[in-house]
């Protein structure tokens, strides 16, 4: 299962998005979720928390989450603020992301 927020995720949308995704995971019994954030230019602690919550819930439902497409500025800001995307794999792009999911699924 693949998801790709093509527009910048504005806050209320992010929560709505999270609920939608979790429901879709249950419905499709998805084993993996690729979260493409290449269209997002600012990631603050709120968004990091939403992503973390998606990952935690997805893991409980047996699905792995990988975030791909972090922009340079987003990656650097996250590191500088000291946020860790714990429980969330990251990868360069969709192709690598699927590879990561495959390896994670084998464990």
């Amino acid at each position, binding site marked *: 299962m693949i998801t790709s927020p093509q527009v910048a995720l504005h806050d209320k949308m992010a929560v709505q998005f999270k609920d939608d995704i979790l429901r879709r995971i249950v419905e499709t019994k998805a084993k993996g979720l690729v979260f493409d954030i290449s269209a997002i230019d600012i990631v603050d602690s709120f968004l990091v928390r939403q992503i973390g919550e998606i990952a935690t819930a997805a893991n409980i439902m047996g699905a792995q989450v990988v975030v791909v497409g972090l922009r*340079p500025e987003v990656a650097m800001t996250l590191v500088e603020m000291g946020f860790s995307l714990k429980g969330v794999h*990251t990868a*360069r792009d969709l192709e690598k992301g699927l590879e990561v999911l495959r390896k994670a699924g084998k464990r």
Partner: protein
Amino acid sequence: MEKGKGGQSEMVPTPIVEAWEGIIMVPVVGILDSARAKQITESILEHIARVKTDIVIISIGGISAVDTKTANHLIRTIHAAKLMGTEAIITGIRPDVAMTLVSLGVELSGIMTFSTMHEGLEYAFKKLGWKVEKSK
């Protein structure tokens, strides 16, 4: 170009050298001040966003001076690259220098560091599945 006191470090931007499929090298020489560190960060991250890169070899053997703040900035760049799916390693860092950095509070854990470019290349090739053989 930013105005600065150090003549050498502002003159030539540190290049990104495409060394092999998926491997780039960044040869850092001279004084690593914060302006240069910023430039290196932006070059590396912009490059790996544009070009599929598996490994960045940051060669720091030629650095004459660096302060802990700048060293930490470089470390954060390495972590940012990791989030973007690229492993950045450091070469030209002798064990005693590594220990000094650690004692100064520079967080090297989780980052591969090597004394020589040779070791760094060896690691990179091995990780990416390349084998170097001498032809008879």
